[in-house]
């Protein structure tokens, strides 16, 4: 469960608040979509949820201890970092306490690679993969630790139509399996199976219905 109570946040070197009086609750097993323009506060909202940032005001409670995270594929590290598909998926099991991967962990990695039909690619470098293949590897990494909460940050950006549909289908299946899903997207269509959809603009979080009532011309779900 995630609960924001009157949360406010501003960066040290900036006067303007990135988020103001955010109240938000997400129950276990819920699928929540987030929409909004760039620079509106979506990234800050996600960083708070993921524990990368701490709020300046209000309180934030997150009960999920295992969080899976999938961002865009266009990041530099995927082209520059020299590691194999197998090694990258192993990173999904790394946490504060774990020193070495056990035999059971290696079984989990194998199962995740099998699930996404990546076992044959395990020795390939991630820089040699296509965008769609790479996103499947990153999804396997996000899921290998059996997270209770999955956070998707525009994971379909730059993807072709077929891979995009495949990814949305996987996310919906994960929701049916009982995972909590927090999905930030640019496309309202991606969120048609979401239990609730919110909109973040100018540091304010409102429901998507409220946003539509304000008369802004977004595509309805």
């Amino acid at each position, binding site marked *: 469960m995630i609960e924001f109570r009157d949360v406010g946040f501003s960066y040290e070197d900036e006067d303007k608040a990135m988020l103001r009086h955010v109240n938000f609750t997400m129950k276990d097993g819920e699928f929540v979509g987030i929409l909004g323009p760039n620079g509106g506060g979506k990234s800050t909202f996600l960083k708070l949820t993921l*524990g990368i940032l701490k709020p300046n005001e209000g309180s934030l409670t997150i009960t999920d201890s295992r969080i899976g995270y999938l961002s865009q594929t266009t990041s530099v590290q995927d082209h520059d970092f020299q590691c194999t598909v197998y090694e990258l998926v192993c990173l999904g099991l790394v946490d504060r306490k774990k020193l070495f991967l056990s035999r059971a962990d290696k079984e989990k990695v194998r199962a995740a690679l099998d699930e996404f039909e990546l076992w044959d690619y395990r020795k390939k470098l991630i820089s040699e993969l296509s965008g769609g293949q790479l996103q499947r590897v990153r999804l396997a990494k996000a899921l290998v630790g059996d997270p209770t909460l999955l956070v998707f940050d525009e994971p379909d950006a730059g993807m072709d139509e077929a891979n995009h549909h495949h990814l949305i289908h996987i996310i919906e299946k994960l929701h049916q399996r009982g995972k909590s899903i927090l999905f930030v997207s640019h496309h309202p269509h991606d969120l048609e199976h979401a239990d609730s959809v919110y909109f973040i603009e100018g540091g304010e979080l409102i429901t998507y219905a409220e946003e539509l009532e304000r008369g802004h011309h977004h595509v309805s779900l």
Partner: protein
Amino acid sequence: MLKSWKGGITMFRYEFMVIAFVVALLLGLTFPLLGGTVVYKKLSSSGDALAHSALAGVAIGLVSGLQALYMSIVCCVISFLLIGLLRRKFGKHAEIGVVVVLSAAIAVTGILSGYASSGNFESYLFGSILLISYDELYVVIALAAISIFFFFFTYHRQMACLYSEEEAKIARVPVRLLDFLHSLLFALTVAIGAKIVGSLVVSSMLVLPTAAALLLKKGYRMTCIISVIVSLISMSSGIVLSYYLDWKPGATSVGVAVVILLFFLLYRGVSRALLRHKRLNAPVSDQ
């Protein structure tokens, strides 16, 4: 003068050669384990900056009469803290921090070197691995043991940080603490390495083995293993060749590492050309 190869490996009859060989192997193991991370972070020049800081420390030590090795350790640690501070200040242009420290170190070294005896100073430029005291041997053993322990116990977490600091933070990996500990160990390695193999050599040996291993494109684990093998071969052959050919050991080690790197480069070029040739000559399917 070329010494006789007859009668087996004569160099091991001398205790100082045995100690030099052991130290070369220990440093050969330590350099890529700590230097690899710096190469992956694209901060290879920080080794250079720290090596020059070590030299500045030596200059301060020689002029003030304080123990040069300890002064070089102090200077390296201060420089590493400064680089960290400046890297955060300059954000995207983090390499500027490295250049600032490098420039300051060159200035201090240049000014103070005029007051130090040139013989002493030169021994720090190219090292003095053949003149190692037991105290220095113990320091190197301790450094190698700590580095190996640090590498193995933080292997996956370091790799997670190198792939994406943000995703590592989400997995609750103590990113800042790991970076601090690694940088501290790195600074100590440069300071100690500068005394033994020379400040001009240490920064090369921290980078070259990993740079060579990366050319083979074998993934993170294999890159670590290959870089250690390259480093061990370079460091040990530096000692052996220096004994038989009267060359400077540190410079010889770097020379061997460069030759291995060029060989890997050639191997990659040839294997790529062969692959292209194979593809071009592959029979075209009718369908």
